[in-house]
């Protein structure tokens, strides 16, 4: 019987927050990492006897019936499934979906949708996003397809990134908080090129830093999608790829940066070439997409807009009272607080950059966010990047 199998309860050696509540549950999450806890629980389920040696992890074992039951040895109380970190993060994602369902549509959204169902691609909106939407409509018609993709990509990516900086349970809660944080939630709810860009950038960043083989290449694919959705994402993908992409096999840092830069160049060229390919009008599409829009106006909380052909396009126009109330509340927040002011996040990002010099994931997000805002006056990525990085930097700076 190894030490893992002998663990009945983790009380000594755990943090003060770990306690046994009678026949209820043990809060172990704050004392051991999520991975360790899962391993212990899995081993405890198969335990046949419970001796009392000292455990390998240095935690003293003692026979507490509730704890044993909790760990599944006697088949009694199990930890609540609903309190798992992934479930908490998923709850945040669900909140976005409930707020947005089937997806907040503006005039821009309808133009992209019409392009997706038609043959003509006008240069006013990135045509590659319409092409992507056309593919999604093979299995799921309407705005909900894009809503699910962009919000799920963000939720998964954020949770994965935050899990690297803090315990899983905390990562779950922070992801939840991020998803319902108004300046982050609102763009995720809208069917916009920027929203898809933000979701896939976060996902791409998370996949790039994965230790599993081949997964970083999926991260590159996600960043390619971000470039397709919004060509000026190239300024956001540059720091992410250069700082986070590590090709297989050990190389010197200089070589790694060179390979990463070349990789970034490749996905950017492919993204812009695809954009040019899908554009039918004789117009310089690349310049049209990557130059700052002088008339760009960032609407903090965009209202749902309904052109006359909305119903024919299969876009329902009814909103629930909860959605209407939520939108009013968010509009109030935008109007009366500085939460939606992009300059706040620019200052935050600039302040965080020196603190994150040794954290390439946070640094990549921050630099990309600042560049995105400074060059194209697009605040959506700046806001998301700043909030994510803030959580990561603070978590890593907390004394353990």
């Amino acid at each position, binding site marked *: 019987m190894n030490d893992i199998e002998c663990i009945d309860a983790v009380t000594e050696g755990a943090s003060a927050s770990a306690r046994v509540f009678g026949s209820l549950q043990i809060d172990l999450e704050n004392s051991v990492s999520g991975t360790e806890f899962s391993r212990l629980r899995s081993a405890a389920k198969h335990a046949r006897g419970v001796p009392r040696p000292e455990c390998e992890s240095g935690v003293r074992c003692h026979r507490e019936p509730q704890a044993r039951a909790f760990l599944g040895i006697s088949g009694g109380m199990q930890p609540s499934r609903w309190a798992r970190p992934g479930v908490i993060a998923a709850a945040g994602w669900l909140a976005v979906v409930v707020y947005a*369902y089937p997806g907040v549509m503006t005039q821009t959204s309808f133009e992209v949708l019409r392009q997706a169902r038609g043959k003509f691609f006008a240069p006013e909106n990135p045509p590659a996003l319409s092409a992507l939407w056309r593919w999604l409509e093979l299995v*799921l018609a309407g705005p909900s397809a894009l809503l699910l993709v962009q919000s799920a990509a963000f939720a998964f990516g954020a949770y994965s990134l935050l899990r690297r900086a803090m315990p899983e349970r905390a990562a779950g809660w922070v992801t939840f908080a991020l998803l319902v944080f108004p300046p982050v939630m609102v763009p995720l709810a809208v069917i916009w090129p920027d929203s898809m860009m933000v979701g896939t950038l976060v996902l791409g960043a998370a996949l790039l830093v994965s230790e599993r083989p081949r997964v970083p290449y999926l991260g590159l694919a996600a960043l390619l999608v971000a470039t397709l959705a919004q060509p000026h994402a190239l300024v956001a993908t540059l720091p992410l790829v250069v700082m986070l992409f590590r090709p297989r096999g050990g190389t010197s840092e200089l070589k790694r940066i060179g390979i990463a830069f070349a990789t970034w160049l490749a996905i950017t060229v492919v993204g812009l070439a695809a954009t040019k390919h899908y554009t039918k009008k004789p117009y310089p599409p690349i310049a049209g997409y990557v130059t700052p829009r002088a008339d760009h106006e960032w609407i903090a909380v965009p209202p749902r807009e309904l052109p006359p052909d909305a*119903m024919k396009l299969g876009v329902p126009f009814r909103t629930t009272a909860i959605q209407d109330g939520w939108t009013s509340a968010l509009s109030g927040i935008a109007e009366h607080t500085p939460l939606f002011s992009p300059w706040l996040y620019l200052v935050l990002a600039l302040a965080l950059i020196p603190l994150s010099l040794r954290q390439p994931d946070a640094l990549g997000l921050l630099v990309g966010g600042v560049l995105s805002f400074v060059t194209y006056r697009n605040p959506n990525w700046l806001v998301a990047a700043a909030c994510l990085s803030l959580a990561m930097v603070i978590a890593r700076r907390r004394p353990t």
Partner: protein
Amino acid sequence: MTPRRILVVGWLVVVLYAYPGYMSYDSVLQLLQARDGVYTGGHPPMMGVEWRITDALIAGPFPMLVIQVTCFLAGAYLLLRRAMSERAAALCACALAWVPPISAVLAVIWKDSQMTAFLMLGTALLLSTSRRVRLGGLALLFGATAMRYNALAITFPLVVLLFKWTDAARWYKRYGIAVAAWLAITLCANIVNSALTTETERTYLWHDALALADITGTLRYAADISDDTLRAELEGTPLLVTTNIQATARSTAGADELPERKRMTFGTGVYVPGLWVSTFHLFAESSTDEQRAAISRAWRSIVLSHPSAYLAYRWHVTQERIHLGDHDIPSGTYVWFTDVLDLEGSTAKTGHNAVPSKLQVQLHKVMLAVGTSWLFRPWIYLALSLVMLGFAIHHRHRDILAVLLSGLANELALFVLAPTVDYRYSVWLVASTLLAICMLVGRRVRRT
């Protein structure tokens, strides 16, 4: 692939086929009632309340679709797990949810779909080792009973044979408690639905439809009765003709004289719509309590005194409903996002519309074609069910026996209560039969 992943894939396939949920005239009406908070009783008010709650979170049919597909899959998996490995149970549960005769109904927001889903999960929970979970199963069966009037026949064998308060109880205590539990959920469901019905909007489905059809149908097959006798027996009812009353009941009058919307409620088939046409040439809808009392009196007088004529008429209805002897049958699938009889109007009223994905377009074609095949003939499942019953009794599989008996009980109830020909009435028969077959085969394979 783990069982959970298999179930997730299975769930996704059904949802992608049905997204965001198909809605017929009944569904649109129920959604509007849910939003207004006015329940007429023509449709289960409990379902209206459920939809009102989900519509407050996400407007439209999608949350209801999620509920019914999730409950069905979860229930099927839990039941099948008793007869086979977890992985096999997950695969079989997905197959059950995908099979066209079941997915065609699961995809539509109908009370029948909700009832089937709650029955499946409720039955599975009744077999749990935890009393709390068993009570949860009873709660779901209560929900199922509240969805359809014939569900009380379905829940009777399920509760009586499967529910137990404690393992230690003697047999008379056990069955006594089970019967009491069934009575409790049945009565509560009726009380709750009645309490939720808006009094000023109450409809009298039995008096204005089934009772009148029963009288007309019985008169068709009864021996000749004079007009004087019939006028006396039908006094006080909203009778439209005073001479040649029985001849009118026996005739197949022109359907064109009736309002189109009314004709559309008669459903598919030949015999049953013809019967309804005759009924509404014979009777108008009641408008006062006195007329309804007279209808009840006339029903007792005519139907109960001509039992063989009544049974003959009900047999003809059943024959058409289960497509026994039919060469061609209308499609049993429904694949429209709003009321197909009034697409634009229902879209405007509900604020809901959708367009099918490319995948859905292809699946619609397949399902509409398959909907006319032998897979959608309930008599086949009735026959299979009777055969499986023998196996279940022989091998003493109480759970399978209960499931099969519930399907048969459903058909027995429909023999008396089904007003029109509609495939969805028999979906529980289909589901219970296929489930029982999977479980029997699973246990057989396990033994060998």
